[in-house]
């Protein structure tokens, strides 16, 4: 059976050119960047070149880039590192973040509240899952340790007005973090234009390798290390550098920025076709997230009276790999908190579907998907009706 991958927001395949860039650093240039000898110097040079390239691509200084094991670690470092430092320095104990954040931010904020006495204030979102600057403004104050609002939402694709929120935080002297893990593949991530103090990246969302990411930390932003040890990354993140992956991330980001416009144009037209086709062919279907302010490769829906997990299984069995809001492998589905935060009723929120496209996606694949989806939704509704008699 031919399989079609439509889950590029989950992860992407490694770009051939990225793999080429990485290969020498597994066996030829294998040294530890912290070593004194020539082997170490060569490896260190590769890491520092990667750092400079990434910094240049996002408008930062090289020393403002901290390499991590991925987006989740970058989010953890930003929240824990800044919150602890700000409490120590100015006694700030409040954390502002949105109800629709990725778990890497939301659960970290909850842990800081539960374990370290911080007070989390959950910013409300509108029906599209967007955080309004006004909402942030009302909650802001000098006693806020950190504000964290994601750039683009992984589940529903909506894009937040990051620059406006950043400006509000700057005016109050409160550090502002954005999780740009989903956004980096398609949206401009110039940290000067955005005005953010911290920004998280994960390489595997833009055809780079899994297991590597970075946190941008604006100079002067207070940050305590979370992972301590050998003093790498100027003491901000200990651990021997993952040299080939760091090199791969730099190459992948370079390609993402260079080819951003053509990649965007390609997926956006196909994505429009997905949205039109689904809403036209499926009764009781709604688009989730914002119709315009959304990632160009991202389409997400809810279908009334459908078990989203079951729909994914039916689609997979028909050869189409998609995702839903309630990522669940165990058959114990719960409606997505993101969709509930957007105000969707439970009978709708349980039936979510996320279709995310990538550079390899073709128009034929999209048409084949649109041909199969109505039958799968119908089957899911029939089987679901059996369950809840």
């Amino acid at each position, binding site marked *: 059976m031919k399989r079609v991958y439509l889950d590029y927001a989950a992860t992407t395949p490694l770009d051939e050119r990225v793999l080429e860039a990485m290969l020498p650093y597994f066996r030829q240039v294998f040294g530890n960047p912290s070593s004194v000898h020539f082997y170490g110097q060569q490896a260190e040079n590769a890491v520092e070149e990667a750092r400079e390239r990434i910094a240049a691509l996002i408008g930062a200084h090289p020393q403002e880039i901290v390499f991590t094991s991925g987006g989740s670690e970058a989010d953890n470092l930003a929240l824990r590192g800044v919150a602890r430092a700000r409490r120590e320095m100015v006694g700030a104990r409040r954390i502002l973040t949105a109800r629709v954040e990725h778990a890497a931010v939301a659960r970290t904020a909850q842990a800081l509240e539960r374990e370290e006495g911080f007070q989390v204030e959950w910013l409300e979102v509108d029906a599209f899952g967007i955080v309004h600057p006004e909402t942030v403004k009302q909650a802001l104050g000098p006693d806020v340790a950190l504000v964290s609002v994601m750039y683009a939402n992984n589940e529903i694709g909506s894009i937040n007005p990051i620059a406006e929120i950043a400006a509000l935080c700057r005016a109050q002297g409160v550090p502002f973090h954005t999780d740009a893990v989903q956004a980096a593949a398609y949206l401009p991530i110039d940290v000067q234009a955005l005005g953010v103090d911290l920004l998280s990246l994960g390489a595997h969302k833009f055809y780079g390798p899994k297991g590597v990411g970075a946190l941008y930390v604006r100079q002067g932003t207070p940050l305590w290390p979370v992972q301590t040890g050998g003093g790498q990354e100027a003491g901000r993140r200990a651990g021997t550098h993952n040299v080939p992956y760091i090199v791969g991330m730099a190459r992948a980001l370079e390609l993402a920025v260079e080819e951003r416009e053509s990649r965007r144009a390609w997926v956006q037209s196909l994505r429009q076709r997905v949205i039109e086709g689904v809403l036209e062919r499926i009764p009781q279907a709604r688009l989730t997230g914002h119709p315009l302010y959304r990632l160009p490769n991202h389409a997400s829906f809810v279908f009334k009276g459908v*078990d989203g997990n*079951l729909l994914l299984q*039916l689609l997979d*069995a028909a050869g189409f790999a998609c995702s839903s809001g309630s990522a669940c492998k165990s058959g*114990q*589905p719960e409606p997505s908190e993101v969709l509930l935060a957007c105000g969707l009723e439970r009978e709708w929120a349980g039936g979510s579907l996320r279709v995310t496209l990538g550079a390899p996606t073709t128009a034929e694949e999209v048409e084949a998907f649109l041909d199969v989806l109505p039958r799968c939704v119908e089957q899911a509704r029939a089987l679901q009706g*059996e*369950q*809840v008699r």
Partner: protein
Amino acid sequence: MKRVVVAMSGGVDSSVAAALLREQGYDVVGMMLRLWSEPGKEDSNRCCTPDSMALARRVAARLGIPFYVIDAREIFRQTVVEYFLEGYRRGQTPNPCLLCNRQIRWDFLLRHALAIGAEAMATGHYARLRRTEDGRYELLRAVDRTKDQSYVLYVLTQEKLSRALFPIGEYTKEQVRALASRFGLPTASRPDSQDLCFLAGEDYRAFLRRNAPEMLQPGPILDTQGRKIGVHQGLAAYTIGQRKGLGIAAPYPLYVIAKDVSANALIVGRAEELGQRSLRVGQINWTCGRVPEAPFQAEVKIRYTAREVPGWVEPQGEDRAEVRFEMALRDVTPGQAAVFYQGDVLIGGGIIEG
């Protein structure tokens, strides 16, 4: 390539079943049911612990087949758990696994299998299937008599049997383990247990106390002459043939002989008063695909773990029968199934009424 769904459990039997079908060139898809548990006990459901799900997922990945967990919690609660409670309410000792096989595994799950284009569904049961010359499907006992599980499959109609595959029924348990090693699959079995999955390893009485306390009303214990000789803790707490736990001092051992639901009375008596030479069976499924027109001799199994005894089955209409034995059987339990075999062939079975 024909698509087949395998109902997987993470254990050696269903894993090998999947591997065999894969080797035979089928397009195999694994499915596993998520069944209902009492709130807070979800992780102790022996049919779908998180560990067994993770294991089944690993096996599927190793075999290179997709794997899906099907949420059956609500329908399981509505059908199987309700049936279980209703059985005790009527003074019986129900066997909910039989209903689960019919309504959940071979109906709800089968419909999920058909929905993804499967032509058949396989399980890791030790049983065999044969196509007869006149086009019927016959369910046969497994080659490994000690592992035979055909008893729990008597509920399958011809239509279901036409969709069924039992790939390991031709092998002994030893051979299945050897196959598992050859395929590089885990060889552990789920411990053979008669515990019901949703009891989470507890005694069923504790479950009844929480979920149907009205069933555990104390009442009189009567001897076979109708004399009150004690007090019971609720009819549902006793089974026919039970000797221990009656709390009555008597010069000879006393056994539970019957339950009188309308009077909420437990009838006890001596060993020789226990047992019966005939029993009534209802809700019969003639698994072999033909309603017998005349009485017939059969080997009859009255519990999953009971040995077969020769009996004389007299069909009464489409789905009832009277079964006679040469000697009295002591453990006839209303609510359990009586299953009829002739040689290796499973002729049919139904629920013991009395």
